[in-house]
């Protein structure tokens, strides 16, 4: 029996509902992928082009000015950072409008609401995978032969997807509450990139910043992805710090979404 009261369903039963949503998640994700690449000139090649363009810019700028010591060709270093980063940035930006742009669905059909931003995030996983495949080819070409550490790469992708889902749900909830968040989110994502070691190595940072940069959920993902790719040891302190930050972010977003969910159809 379902009981509907002003206080809403208990949290446990709301979480349990997501078990029945696999089909919906798959078809919403497919919808987002199809709509993104249908009628485009390059189709899925955009997944490669998107990180390539900023890579070329960063490579052009920093290979002549600052000359970071990265242990690998700088363009490879940047590409290895941009592959997970572009996934996160696109996924969070896209998820942030998931509630607003699906207003008609929210107002006409009931389903567990967090499916919408989750599908927006999943639709970009394919971009990360395509970029990763290109990256692997570039690495092999430049003398970083496939090695045992590459087997750990598929474990890092789910971690990145989780961070993107949490951040995306948070951005979508804030955008539903305040319409102007739609313009704020891309800006925040931009700031987030500078706080993540995407185009610079960690050891160029001052010691004070070096101590806290781990408490950024994406630092662990980007650093671990790069370490595995180039066959370097993992920095477990950094990963632990990022895990703590991810847990804190998850709790905050869960509380925000929990407060918003029941009235979502009225808010957007």
């Amino acid at each position, binding site marked *: *029996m379902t009981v509907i009261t*002003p206080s809403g369903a208990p949290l446990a039963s709301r979480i349990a509902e997501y078990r029945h949503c696999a*089909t919906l998640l798959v078809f*919403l994700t497919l919808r987002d992928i199809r709509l993104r690449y*249908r009628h485009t000139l390059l189709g899925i090649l955009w997944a490669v082009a998107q990180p390539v363009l900023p890579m070329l810019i960063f490579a052009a700028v920093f290979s002549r000015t600052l000359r970071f010591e990265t242990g690998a060709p700088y363009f490879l270093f940047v590409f290895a950072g941009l592959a997970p980063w572009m996934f996160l940035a696109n996924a969070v930006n896209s998820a942030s409008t998931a509630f607003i742009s699906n207003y*008609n669905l929210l107002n*006409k059909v009931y389903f567990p609401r967090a499916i919408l931003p989750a599908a927006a995030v999943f639709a970009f996983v394919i971009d990360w995978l395509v970029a990763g495949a290109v990256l692997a080819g570039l690495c092999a070409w430049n003398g970083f032969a496939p090695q045992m550490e590459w087997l750990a790469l598929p474990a890092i992708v789910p971690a990145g997807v989780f961070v993107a889902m949490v951040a995306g749900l948070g951005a979508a909830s804030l955008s539903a509450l*305040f319409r102007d*968040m739609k313009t704020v989110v891309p800006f925040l994502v931009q700031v987030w990139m500078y706080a993540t070691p995407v185009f610079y190595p960690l050891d160029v940072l001052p010691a004070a910043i070096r101590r806290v940069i781990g408490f950024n959920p994406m630092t662990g993902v980007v650093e671990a992805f790069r370490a595995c790719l180039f066959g370097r040891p993992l920095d477990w302190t950094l990963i632990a710090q990022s895990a703590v930050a991810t847990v804190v972010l998850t709790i905050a977003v869960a509380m925000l979404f929990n407060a918003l969910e029941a009235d979502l*159809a009225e808010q957007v």
Partner: protein
Amino acid sequence: MNAISIQNVSKDFSLGASGRGYRTVKDVLSSGWRRKGKPFRALDGVSFDVAAGEAIGVVGRNGAGKSTLLKLLARILRPTSGRIELRGRVGSLLEVGAGFHPDLSGRENIFLNAAILGMSHREILQKLDAIVAFAGFEKHLDEPVKHYSSGMFMRLAFAVAAHIDPEILLLDEVLAVGDADFQKRCLDRLEQVGRNGQTVVFVSHNMQAMVRLCSRAVLLEDGKVAAIGSAQEIATRYLQSGAGNRAERCYSDGLHAPGDGIARLRAVRIRSRAGEVLETVDIGCEFAIEVEFDVLAGGAALFPSIVLNNEWGPVLWTTDVATEWHAKPRPEGRYRCTAWVPADLIGPGAMSVTAAMYSFQPYTLHFRESDAVSFQAAETRSGSRGGFLGHIDGGVRPRLEWTVEHRDAV
């Protein structure tokens, strides 16, 4: 056993002072978190039970709370107070085609829409053939639905919706679309659903369909349950009473009547040639919209204006420019202007009248009373529809003079 039990349920909507549904950070910084403005009570202490396997109709004027009630049952909105118990899996069909995307193909939309309506992948595959057969076309399934005619689109959308198989089915005005043949098939399908032991809650303005599908019905007025009874009884009451319309309004208190020092509204009414006030107007008969007003200071050339609205917007505008009073200064006294609406002009639906008074040079609005009176336009005679039983679009439905030429060979 009851499949649905609704216990003293109320629902308030807090409308922002700005009139928008949403807020910005600036709004919160300048006026605080709590929304200002009076909450609007859409449902007020609604209670009734629905037995398992029963089909129940919900009728009422626009704004009576029918759709809000369905949204509460579907868990799209949550109640402000009260309690609802549902036994069984709930499927809701509040809009045919919700979630369809114009750029996706018919086939892609079937899968997406079925998943949105709660079907599992296996269920969709099982029912795919039946859905395609129900839609009645297979040829264009791989084309984007934006190239479909609206008829094809509705067929496909309803085909998907007709195959959801919940224990409790919530339907809102789903028959308001499609051609007559297709509507008949939809009704047959819905009847079959009722016979399979499913519990159905059916919201509609179409009394014919409601009586056919439902055994019992609930009449909502201003968010409250006004009556519960057999479907036939409720349909008759809804049509005859005008369901809470107010077809005459008199402003006897001179001070609070709309107006200024020049003109003041006294009364607005809908009446027949015999002088009888009409809460339900047969669109096949003529009727009058009458406005009474006082001119308190003579000398201004006044333009009384009457706007007739249905739920979608204005359908008719009229003023007395064709009379001897056009652009002529009016002396003090009481005036009664009557606008005669001919038979076979307006379409059916819930109608409301706005009465206003202007003068020009300089432009002055003396009063503007929206929703001064309201009535139900119904078709009890032919209603200019011939033998067609389905929904006809449009705010007006004039009987026009048609000529048809036919040649045997081209």
